[in-house]
């Protein structure tokens, strides 16, 4: 008997941007395709200059002055980019207070 091989996609922390001008941090197991499901997604409403630009949200994460929404499980469409997030940035995102 041949057992079907089952693979479990590994989740990773990403930032996803959309055509609707959304910037989301969250955890995804699949970042291909037209839609991306993010677990515990948090929206960045505003980032301060000390983030050093949009890519800083992926490299260092949000800083104290940034405005970040609460977490939600969400499906995103109209994806424009997906960025990997460094461990340091993940920590900053997880610590960021809800300040939307």
């Amino acid at each position, binding site marked *: 008997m041949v057992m079907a091989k089952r693979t479990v996609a590994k989740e990773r922390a*990403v930032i996803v*941007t*959309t055509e*609707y*001008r*959304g*910037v*989301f941090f969250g955890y995804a197991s699949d*970042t*291909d395709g037209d839609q991306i499901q993010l677990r515990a*997604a948090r*929206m*960045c*409403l*505003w*980032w*301060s*200059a000390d*983030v*050093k*630009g*949009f*890519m*800083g949200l*992926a*490299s260092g994460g949000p800083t104290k002055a940034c*405005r970040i*929404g*609460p*977490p*939600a*499980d*969400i499906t*995103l*469409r109209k*994806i*424009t*980019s*997906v*960025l*990997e*997030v*460094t461990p340091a940035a993940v920590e900053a995102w997880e610590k960021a*207070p*809800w*300040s*939307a």
Partner: protein
Amino acid sequence: MVGLIRGEVPAERKGSGSGDGYGYGDGYGYGDGSGYGSGDGSGYGDGSGYWEATIPALVARWTEAQQARFEAARREGATIAFWRSNSDGTPSNGGTGPARRAGDVEQIDGPLQLCGRRALHATLAPEKWRGDKVWIVALFGEIAQGDDKLGALHREILGEAWAVENSR
């Protein structure tokens, strides 16, 4: 160094690379005053649904009684939305009246009319409004919709979503 897994950084985000960032550095979302939730600021339904999606996790932090009331309100067909107040619960966006608390039920006389005393307001774009405290509310009956706002003649304050200054 950050890796781009797919796509490309939108052109409007590219720029000098530091300081104010990619041209939008210290603006809202992409600098036009809105984030994702309502896209270009036009309001409900045409965005990601992010704010609505936050509600289950926010409600899960409430007492059992509050959660039961939330579910009951949904079953009754209420529109669930957000409302912002000052930290003491008083209106922070032009409204009047005393500090609101979870469980408060308000009803006013019609006819329903947004942008004034003829509506009890709420929003599905809470980031567009001021106020240190964000509540989850239920609107009953006829609902009026405007830019980033909802209005009804009957509103119930279901519970606190978060307080900006003490949100964790």
